[in-house]
């Protein structure tokens, strides 16, 4: 087994003396999808943003590929990570293609290399070619999410960090994009860390699930482990807090 991608040890964070994370230890293994799951305010987003250095821990340390995040190396390290966020976080004044290629252009990649990478990503995400010239305000939610994913993948990152990537989508688009996203993850074989509050989505994507509550990690493991050996009654409650439209059918059927 290869070395872990992230190692967070004893990280804490408070906002105006309200604790958001309390002394968490977490290891993100390579080439697996780890899902951080919990209700709003559980600290899952803070944990993800800490891996990007967007949030600086009050205590503890964050290692990426063995290097501790610091002011000196953060820019270089971020370029080895891909980040996507709910709604896409696209730059509204740039076209889809400009959004995707911004960083490569900034790093002065040769034109041919940029074009090759872009067309590969368009194929991978099945983004319509003509949509590349469109501005974010002209894209549908699903298309914006694909652009966001392409942007995250452009530099060939070692890890993809996604914060509720499908959060703002309607259910059908979301359902379809979940399958596509999983297909892309399998194809590129990268380490993925994803934040979601949806247990179904977490079970669908995650090799490993990390459940957080009130800024603490309650348990981490496979979905089977969480179901069969919950460390806390809350975990069972959280897993079962799902409703299927089929429930209604079953209830009506004697």
């Amino acid at each position, binding site marked *: 087994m290869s070395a872990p991608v992230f190692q967070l040890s004893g990280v804490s964070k408070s906002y105006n003396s309200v604790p958001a994370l309390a002394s968490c230890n977490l290891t993100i293994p390579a080439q697996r999808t780890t899902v951080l799951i919990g209700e709003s305010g559980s600290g899952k987003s803070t944990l993800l943003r800490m891996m990007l250095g967007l949030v600086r821990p009050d205590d503890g340390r964050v290692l990426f590929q063995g290097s501790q995040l610091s002011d000196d190396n953060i820019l270089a390290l971020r*370029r080895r990570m891909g980040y996507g966020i709910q709604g896409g976080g696209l*730059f509204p*004044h740039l076209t889809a293609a400009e959004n995707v290629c*911004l960083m490569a252009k900034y790093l002065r990649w040769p034109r041919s290399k940029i074009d090759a990478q872009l067309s590969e990503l368009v194929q991978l995400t099945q983004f319509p070619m003509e949509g590349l010239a469109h501005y974010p305000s002209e*894209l549908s939610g699903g298309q914006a999410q694909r652009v966001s994913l392409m942007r995250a993948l452009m530099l060939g990152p070692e890890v993809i960090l996604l914060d509720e990537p499908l959060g703002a989508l309607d259910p059908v688009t979301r359902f379809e994009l979940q399958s596509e996203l999983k297909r892309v993850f399998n194809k590129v074989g990268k380490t993925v860390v994803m934040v979601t509050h949806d247990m179904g989505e977490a079970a669908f994507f995650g090799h490993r699930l990390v459940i957080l509550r009130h800024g603490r990690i309650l348990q981490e493991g496979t979905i089977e482990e969480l179901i069969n050996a919950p460390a806390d009654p809350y975990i069972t409650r959280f897993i079962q807090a799902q409703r299927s439209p089929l429930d209604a059918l079953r209830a009506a059927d004697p």
Partner: protein
Amino acid sequence: MKIAYLAVLTGWTTAYGAMRVEVGSKAFTESVILGELLTQTLVAAGVPTEHRRQLGGTKILWAALLNGEIDVYPEYTGTIAQELFSGAGLRGDEAIRQALAARGVKMTASLGFNNTYAIGMRAEVAERLGIVRISDLTSHPELKIGFSNEFTDRNDGWPLLRDRYQLPQRDVRGIDHDLAYRALESGAIQVMDLYSTDAEIRYYRLRVLEDDRHVFPEYNAVALYREDLGRRWPDAVAAISRLEGRIRPEEMIALNARVKLDRVQESRAASEFLSQKLGIHGAGTEETVVDRLWRNLREHLFLVTVSLIAAIAVALPLGVLCARFPRLGQVVLGAVGVIQTIPSLALLVFLIPLLGIGARPSIVALFLYSLLPIVGNTASGLRNIAIEVRESAEALGLPRGARLQLIELPMASPSILAGIKTSAVINVGTATLGALIGAGGFGQPILTGIRLNDVPLILQGAVPAAALALVVQGLFEVAERVLVPRGLRLRPSSQ
């Protein structure tokens, strides 16, 4: 930094000023005519001379003379004794000369007439009420009085008059001298202050009340000039002296009437007088309307452009700092907000001791007024960028400078441009006040038009200034189309 900047400006002034003689004049017709007489006499003597006309009141001219902004200006002995050296109790020309010498200033002999303050009423009203002397006013407390602001405030004006004559009138208001004639004509006021050489005395058929207690001191017209003038321009002092004793009171009234009633330009009235009286020919230059409009436009654009560019250069980085450090932002926005509340005329007067007269203090004032809209709009434009967009840029590994340049400033550009547009349009309007301190621009015909009650002349300044504001507004709308990224101009899709 600021001090170095001022030092450079001051050095520039000194070097620039040495190339010619600067004549100043106050913002009333007789002073402008006298300034023109001095200028043309100097030019005729081969001294390169510039007339900086209608520069406001006594304090501004005196400060400008001491600063070396101007070299010569026409003044009155009464004003020197009562206003410039108030409290010193100067009596007689010799005492005045000594006081002036201590400040490095010299004075010519009288130019030939005494333009003292006087109190006037319409002849028929005075006749009806039986008023001949100022002391007769004590028995008519109901009379409404309109005095020029300067007369109301200065020590040798209304306060002295009221005390000596024990005048009972309570309805005393400040009013522009040239408007006071029309207020008198319409009956809004019955008593006003006059200058004894005013052209209007005859025109409006006024009675000048006898100063029976001899309150008003002598106001002999003289020229004040800097001691160093003779060293820098040996011919200049002799040229100025040629005017000593040459202008009789009735000639001054006629000159004033030529300009105010016959609508002849001061330069022409002065050159007519000089050729008839002193045999000096061809020194006066007359400007056509088109020439003047063109000059005013260039002056106006100069003021607006320089101040706006400087304001953008300072306010944009300030706005960025305000957005990044909200605490500092509150302080900065508070400070530029306070600047905005200073009345423009007051700000101009504050700036004169630092920067002298002319374009520089005007540009600095316009610069200061331009800061708030640009700083405010830059800061709010940056602050309104959604957090997920800002963090997406950060997460890409873009350094701070690149994020600002590639993401944040383009996204804030509609707001920033709107701020610059606001500043530019306000600037075009405010720049008209620059004429009060010799910066020229479209304010100059407005000021002269008000002084001469010449509505077409006022319009020659007001209409182009308004048109210029519209043009500036239009240019910015074009600029928005070019500068604001297309993606920000699209309507958000409803998809």
